[in-house]
């Protein structure tokens, strides 16, 4: 494959993923509102378009027309930089997540991932550790004490949960023996899903993912009754939209990571051995990947509207005294399984 072909194919993949992310994010907001309405016995948005389906576009239009207010005390360049960091981290992470098997088109083998790098999982962890800056800087640069407290809470929270997240991932890496996401997916062939083999690691990872995305029950950085809007109190117009977009994009990333690491990625157990035509198998596998993500996104929203918020000290002690030891136990468990069954 020539360099030009490589660049062209990569550009097409980036374009497809970017468009899909943007569309999914806007409709995720719609579904969040619809599901919350359903959970609270309301109707939800139903005025713009058929069943309110054009609501996301109306929202974006409204936000774009709003005045962009920057407080007098704010540090202007950093106030602008913070939502950019949030969006950058949210969108670049997707580059290493495979959404299907390799496909052959016109004699060229195309892996269905933007960048098949052999340190893929570390790349994801590195970017997610940079995500803290967006919230911390937003809180600091606003020049408001509520924003600052929100920002500081979030850095403490994200650092705490990154530890157990990293250790949960270590269990997955032990099984796969590789940091390449594609290899991790392939190591979960059949029903060898990591969610079934290492349930403790799966639970600690999912809980940490909730904390990393700042979603309820872990949305302490923006706890409304205590901190007004938290770190984005002083944000308005499209900068606020940037944070909003990044939060939902992070939910998609977290779901995609959970699917890749624990739910077999794009694989459907034993579908290759049924005897379907190859093209159909690949189509089913790609659809199954997105179906798994869709279910997890529903789960994220479901949890948000079912469980009340933790108190800050409860959150910290859960992170350090429960999740951290559990993720260590998981590593011992996985190592034991490998020793006994010579996996």
């Amino acid at each position, binding site marked *: 494959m020539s360099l030009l072909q490589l660049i062209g194919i990569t550009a097409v993949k980036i374009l497809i993923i970017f468009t899909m992310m943007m569309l999914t994010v806007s409709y995720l907001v719609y579904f969040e509102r619809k599901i919350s309405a359903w959970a609270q016995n309301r109707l939800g948005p139903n005025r713009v378009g058929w069943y309110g389906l054009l609501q996301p576009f109306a929202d974006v239009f409204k936000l774009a027309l709003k005045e962009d207010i920057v407080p007098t005390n704010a*540090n202007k360049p*950093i106030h602008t930089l913070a939502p950019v960091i949030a969006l950058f981290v949210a969108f670049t992470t997707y580059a290493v997540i495979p959404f299907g098997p390799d496909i052959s088109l016109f004699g060229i083998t195309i892996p269905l991932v933007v960048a098949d*790098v*052999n*340190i893929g999982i*570390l*790349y994801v*962890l*590195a970017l997610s*550790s*940079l995500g*803290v*800056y967006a919230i*911390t*800087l937003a809180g*600091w640069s606003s020049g408001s004490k509520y924003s*600052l407290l929100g*920002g*500081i809470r979030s*850095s*403490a929270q994200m*650092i705490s949960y990154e530890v157990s997240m990293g250790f949960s991932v270590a269990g997955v890496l032990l099984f796969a023996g590789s*940091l390449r996401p594609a290899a991790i997916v392939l190591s979960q062939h059949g029903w060898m899903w990591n969610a079934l083999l290492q349930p403790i690691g799966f639970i600690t990872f999912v809980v940490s993912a909730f904390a990393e995305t700042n979603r309820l029950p872990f949305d302490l950085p923006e706890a409304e009754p205590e901190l007004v809007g938290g770190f984005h109190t002083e944000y308005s117009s499209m900068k606020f939209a940037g944070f909003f977009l990044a939060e939902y994009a992070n939910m998609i990333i977290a779901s995609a990571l959970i699917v890749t690491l624990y739910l077999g990625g794009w694989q459907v157990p034993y579908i290759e051995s049924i005897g379907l035509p190859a093209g159909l198998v690949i189509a089913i596998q790609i659809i199954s990947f997105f179906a798994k993500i869709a279910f997890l996104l529903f789960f994220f929203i479901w949890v948000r509207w079912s469980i009340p918020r933790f108190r800050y000290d409860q959150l910290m002690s859960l992170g350090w005294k429960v999740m951290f030891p559990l993720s260590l136990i998981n590593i011992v468990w996985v190592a034991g399984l490998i020793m006994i069954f010579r996996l």
Partner: protein
Amino acid sequence: MSLELFLFLVFAAVAAVSGILMITRSEVVMAALFLILNLASLAGLYLLLNAQFIAVVQVIVYAGAIMVLFLFVIMLLRPEHEKIVTKISGIRTFAFIIAALVFVQLAYVILKSHPGSALNSDVTASVNAGTVESIGTELYTNYILPFEAAGFLLLAATIGAVVLAKRKFE
């Protein structure tokens, strides 16, 4: 100009400029932010040298963990309200001597090294040396004692930190 040379020039320029900006800022948060940019561009340079693992660890450990802690402390202590000390006798002379020593050391190393010989060496071997697999194998075979010693030291430091924090509350 090859792509690698172009990327090297970009990363090197960003690293140098952000380094200078870092030491000339009077606002501490801005200085910390330029240090983060500097560390990130160093990670890019490591990638160009085929040291993928080091590059990612540079971002995770320095940019992602240590600098967050720095920012955390800076934001909580609010150093902008502190009195700025402009003159401490002898500090400039001392700083100049230290900087001169570091400069001489760097110049010596650069002049002594033979960049040509490094470029002619085996490319695949250098790519393999930078992977996680080879670093892991080295750490757990040839360097197991220093590795375990470092781990033990960190454990002792962690326990020390916990003990100190506990005593303060009682």
